[in-house]
C-alpha cells in the first residue's frame, strides 16, 4: 500500500439518477476532511437517461483541473462500467453492483481491484428498518457508492456525516440519518474486504488542515451570483439557456436579497430590458450563452451609442449554432469582440476561475458605470459547472464606483418649474470621453436617447461636425479604461522567469495550465511559465509585448479549432505565436494531456498538438 496526495475519482450513470448528488457528496466529504477538490461535471443535452459522469480530483494542496485515467471508478449501474472501465489506472479500483455488472466482460486493466457492493441488500435492510419501500430509497445508492469510496481511501466516515449536514438543511435535515444508515453499512462492508488494504491510493493526510469555515466549494455560476448581489445588481434578466441558466436560477432562489430576476420571452427582450433598467440607474445584467448572445448584439450596440451601463455574461459552450449545448468550448471570443455592427467601446473581460469570476463580476458593474458602456463578460460551461475549492473570498472591502453622476441632489421646487424643466447635455463632449450622467426622474436634467447619432442632448443628428467628436468621445473611453484598469486585471504572468516555454492563454484554461506547470517542474524538471490574458478589450497591447520580450518558445492553449487568441494577438500586436495546443471535442483539457502536449512541443517542436481525450 502506498500513500497518495492526488486521487481522481469518478462516478457515472444515466442522467437523473443522482450522479451530481453523489459527486457533490464525495467532493464535500473530502473537502470537509481537509482536502482540496476539483469536480468536473459532464452531461448530455437530455433530461433523463443519457450517460452523465462526474470526476472529483482530491489533493492535499489546491487543485484546479482533472487528470485522465481515474484511480477509482464507482457505479451502481452498467453503462458507466462499460463506458469508463478502460479509464481506470492499472493499480486502480472499481466499485460496482455485482447484480448488474460482470467485470469479466469489461475492458479492465489486469491490476484493477474489484469491489462488488450489494447495493440492493443494503437498501433492503434500510427499507425494513424504516418501513420505507426499496424503490423510494434507490437514490441512496449514491451515498452507498460514496461511503464505499471513502472507506477504500481510508477517509474518515465522520466527514460524510458532516457533508450530509451541510447538504441537507432545513426541512431536508431528516434525510441525514437515513443516508448515514446506508453510509455506515457500505463503509463497514468495504473495511471488511481484505482487498481494501491492497489499494494503492490511500489518501495522505494534508500537512495542514484548513480551518473550518475558511473555504468555499463552489462553481463560477454561484460565484457570479454572489458577486452580483454584492455589486448591487438590481435587475437580472434572462432567457433560459444552458449553462447560463444555472446562475439565474441560483439568484432567483435568493429573493431575500431584493434582486428581481425576470425570465423574458427571448434574449432580445432580456438584453433590452436590462438596458432599460440601466438607463434608469439600476445595475442591470443578463446572462446567456452563444446563441443568445448572437440575438443580443443589436441591443449592445444601442447601449454603446447611448452610453448605458449594462453587463452581459456569456457562458460559452460548444458552437456554432446550438453545437454542443452541454459541452465546453472557448470559441465565442471573437464573436464577443466583434459582435454588433458599427463601432462602440467594448469592455470584454475573461476570468480564469471561479475566484476571479467573483471579483471580476463585481468589477464588471463598476466598469459599466465608470465608462458608461456595456461590458461583456466571458465565462464558459467549464467554469459554470465545475466545482472548485478556494479560500473564502474576501468581500469586506469591495468598493462601488458609480462613475461621474450629475444631478443626484437635484430637488424640485414647485415655484421654479423652469429650472425643473431644464435640459441636460447628457452626451457632453469631454476631454476623457466621460460625460456626467443624470437619470430619468431627476428634475432639471431632461435629456433624450436614440440609437441614431445624436447631439449632446440626445437628439438625432447626421452632421459631421457633431458625429466626428461624438464618436471620438465615445471611443476615448477605451483609452481611459486601458489606463485605469489595474495591470493585474489585464494580464498576469504566472510561474518562473526565463522559462524555455511560455504558455499563452485566457479564460478557463487557467486551472489546467497552473496544475501542468507544477507537474512539469516537479516530475520533469521543465520550467514553464504562463501569460494569462484577463482583459480582451481594451487589449493590453503594451503589457503583452513586454511579457513576450524574453519569451523563448510561446505556446497558445485553447479549447477551440481555430486558436482564436492566436488570431487576436496577431491582430492587436503583430506577434505571431507558432505553437498551439487545441482541443475542440467539447471536453476540457486535462492535466495529463497538457503535460504530454507541452513535453512534445519541448522535445519535437511540434507546431500544433490536437487533444481529444474524454467521452
Amino acid at each position, binding site marked *: 500500500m502506498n500513500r497518495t496526495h492526488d486521487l481522481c475519482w469518478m462516478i457515472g450513470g444515466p442522467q437523473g439518477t443522482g450522479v451530481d448528488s453523489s459527486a457533490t457528496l464525495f467532493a464535500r466529504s473530502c473537502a470537509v476532511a481537509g482536502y482540496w477538490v476539483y469536480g468536473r461535471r459532464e452531461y448530455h443535452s437530455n433530461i433523463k437517461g443519457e450517460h452523465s459522469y462526474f470526476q472529483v480530483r482530491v489533493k492535499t494542496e489546491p487543485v484546479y483541473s482533472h487528470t485522465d485515467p481515474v484511480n477509482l471508478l464507482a457505479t451502481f449501474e452498467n453503462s458507466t462500467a462499460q463506458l469508463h472501465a478502460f479509464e481506470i489506472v492499472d493499480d486502480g479500483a472499481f466499485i460496482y453492483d455485482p447484480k448488474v455488472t460482470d467485470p469479466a466482460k469489461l475492458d479492465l486493466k489486469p491490476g484493477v481491484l474489484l469491489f462488488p457492493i450489494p447495493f440492493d441488500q443494503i437498501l433492503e435492510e434500510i427499507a425494513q428498518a424504516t418501513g420505507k419501500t426499496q424503490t423510494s430509497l434507490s437514490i441512496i445508492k449514491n451515498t452507498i457508492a460514496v461511503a464505499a469510496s471513502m472507506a477504500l481511501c481510508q477517509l474518515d466516515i465522520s466527514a460524510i456525516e458532516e457533508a450530509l449536514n451541510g447538504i441537507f438543511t432545513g426541512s431536508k435535515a431528516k434525510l441525514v440519518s437515513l443516508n448515514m444508515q446506508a453510509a455506515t453499512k457500505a463503509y463497514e462492508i468495504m473495511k471488511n474486504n481484505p482487498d481494501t488494504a491492497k489499494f494503492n491510493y490511500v489518501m495522505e493526510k494534508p500537512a495542514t488542515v484548513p480551518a473550518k469555515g475558511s*473555504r468555499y466549494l463552489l462553481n463560477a455560476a454561484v460565484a457570479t451570483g454572489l458577486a452580483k448581489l454584492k455589486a*448591487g445588481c438590481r435587475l437580472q434578466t434572462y432567457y433560459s439557456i444552458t449553462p447560463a441558466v444555472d446562475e439565474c436560477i441560483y439568484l432567483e432562489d435568493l429573493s431575500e436579497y431584493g434582486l428581481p430576476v425576470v425570465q423574458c420571452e427571448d434574449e432580445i427582450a432580456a438584453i*433590452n*430590458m436590462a438596458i432599460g433598467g440601466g438607463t434608469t440607474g439600476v445595475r442591470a445584467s443578463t446572462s446567456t450563452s452563444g446563441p443568445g448572445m448572437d440575438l443580443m448584439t443589436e441591443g449592445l450596440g*444601442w447601449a454603446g451609442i447611448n452610453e448605458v451601463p449594462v453587463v452581459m455574461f456569456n457562458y460559452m459552450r460548444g458552437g456554432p449554432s446550438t453545437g454542443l449545448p452541454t459541452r465546453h468550448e472557448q470559441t465565442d471570443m471573437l464573436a464577443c469582440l466583434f459582435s454588433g455592427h458599427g463601432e462602440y467601446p467594448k469592455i470584454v473581460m475573461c476570468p480564469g476561475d471561479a475566484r476571479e469570476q467573483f471579483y471580476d463580476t463585481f468589477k464588471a458593474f463598476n466598469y459599466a458605470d465608470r465608462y458608461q458602456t456595456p461590458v461583456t463578460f466571458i465565462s464558459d460551461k467549464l467554469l459554470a459547472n465545475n466545482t472548485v475549492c478556494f479560500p473564502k473570498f474576501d468581500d469586506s472591502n469591495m468598493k*462601488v464606483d458609480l462613475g461621474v453622476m450629475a444631478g443626484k441632489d437635484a430637488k424640485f421646487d414647485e415655484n421654479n418649474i423652469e429650472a425643473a424643466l431644464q435640459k441636460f447635455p447628457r452626451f457632453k463632449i469631454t476631454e476623457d470621453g466621460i460625460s456626467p450622467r443624470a437619470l*430619468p*426622474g431627476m428634475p432639471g436634467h431632461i435629456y433624450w436617447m436614440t*440609437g441614431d447619432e445624436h447631439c449632446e442632448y440626445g437628439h438625432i443628428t447626421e452632421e459631421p461636425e457633431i458625429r466626428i467628436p461624438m464618436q471620438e468621445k465615445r471611443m476615448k473611453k477605451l483609452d481611459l479604461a486601458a489606463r485605469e484598469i489595474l495591470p493585474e486585471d489585464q494580464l498576469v504572468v504566472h510561474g518562473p522567469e526565463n522559462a524555455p516555454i511560455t504558455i499563452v492563454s485566457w479564460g478557463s484554461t487557467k486551472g489546467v495550465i497552473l496544475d501542468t506547470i507544477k507537474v512539469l517542474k516537479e516530475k520533469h524538471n521543465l520550467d514553464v511559465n504562463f501569460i494569462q490574458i484577463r482583459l480582451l478589450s481594451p487589449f493590453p497591447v503594451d503589457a503583452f509585448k513586454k511579457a513576450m520580450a524574453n519569451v523563448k518558445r510561446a505556446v497558445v492553449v485553447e479549447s477551440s479549432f481555430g486558436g482564436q487568441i492566436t488570431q487576436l494577438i496577431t491582430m492587436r500586436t503583430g506577434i505571431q505565436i507558432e505553437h498551439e495546443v487545441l482541443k475542440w471535442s467539447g471536453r476540457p483539457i486535462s492535466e495529463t494531456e497538457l503535460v504530454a502536449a507541452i513535453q512534445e512541443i519541448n522535445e519535437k517542436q511540434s507546431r500544433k498538438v490536437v487533444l481529444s481525450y474524454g467521452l
Partner: protein
Amino acid sequence: MVSSPTPLKTPLKGSQLKSDIHSEWCPGCGDFGITNSIQQAIAGLGMKPWETFIVSGVGCSGKVPHYIHTYGMHTLHGRSLAFAQGAKLANPNLHIIAAGGDGDGYGIGAGHFVHAGRRNMDMTYVVFNNEVYGLTKGQASPTLAQGAQPKSLALPNPTTAINPVTLALACGYTFIARSYAFDAKHLKETIMKAIQHKGMALIDVLQPCPTYNNIHTKDYFAEMVDVGGSQVPRVYYLENEGYDGVVKNPNDINEVNAKQAQCFEQAHKVEDRVALGVYYQIERPTFQDILKKNIPLLNEFTPVELPYYDPQTMIANTDLSKAAADFTI
C-alpha cells in the same frame, strides 16, 4: 421608501411639453395629432415631465420622444416594450409611455407585445397604426387588410391583417382602447384614462399617413356613411352606443367572460364605420404587485433605491454570509 409620484400643483400647459426640436414628419401626418394629444394628456394629469419617460421603437412614429419635453428614449425597431419594461422594473415611480408604429409594435415587436400583456406591467402603450411602414417607404404593415393596395405597394397585399384589439385581449392587456389621430379630444382623454389605469394599457391609434396610405386618409375618416338609409359620421364612439367595456368585478367570471366576448365581437364587426373607445378594461395585479409579494424588500424600496453600499466609503455592504453558508467548508 417607496413613494408614489404626486401631480404638480400647477399643471403645465401643453405647449411647455413641446421640445425645441423641429419635427421631420410629412405635412398632414397623423403623428402630429398623436404627439399633441400625448402632451395634452401629460399636462392634463399634472404629470411631472422629469418623472415621465417616453420610450419608442423605430419608424417615423419612433421619433416621437424627441418632440416631447420629458425624458425620452428612442430605442430599436420593435424593442420599445422590452426597454420600457426594464425601465419600469428598475424605477416603478416613473410614468412610462411607450409609443411607436404598427410595424414596430405588431410586426417585429410582436413577441414583446404578447409578453408585455402577460406581465401586465403598469404602463401605457400608444401604437400609431397607419397600416404601412412609413420610414422604409410604405410597405404593408401587419394591420393592412389582405388585398389592399395603397399606392406604395406594387401588388395587392397578400397576407391577412392582425386585429390589435383582440390580439391584446388574448395576451392579457388590461386596458384596450382605440382612438384616432385627429380626434384630439377623444385621443387625449383616452390617453389620460390609459395612464390612470393600473396595468398594461394599449391604445391603437388610427393614424393617416398621407404619403403612403391613400386608402385610409384624413378624408376617409371625415366622411359620412350610409347606415340604414341615414347618413352618419364614419367615426363613432362606443360609449355613446351603450357599450361599456369596463369589468366592474374582476372576480366575477361571468362578467369577465361577457365583457371579453363583447370586446371580441365589437373588434371583429364588419362595418363601414370606425368605432373608437375603450373596448375592454379590467383590474388585475400588476407585475410590480406580484414582484413585491415574491420579493418582500421591494415593498420598502424600489430597485433603484435599494441600498447596497455605504455612501461615505462606497464600500459594498450586502452581507453574503447567509447565501454563502451553503458552500462554506
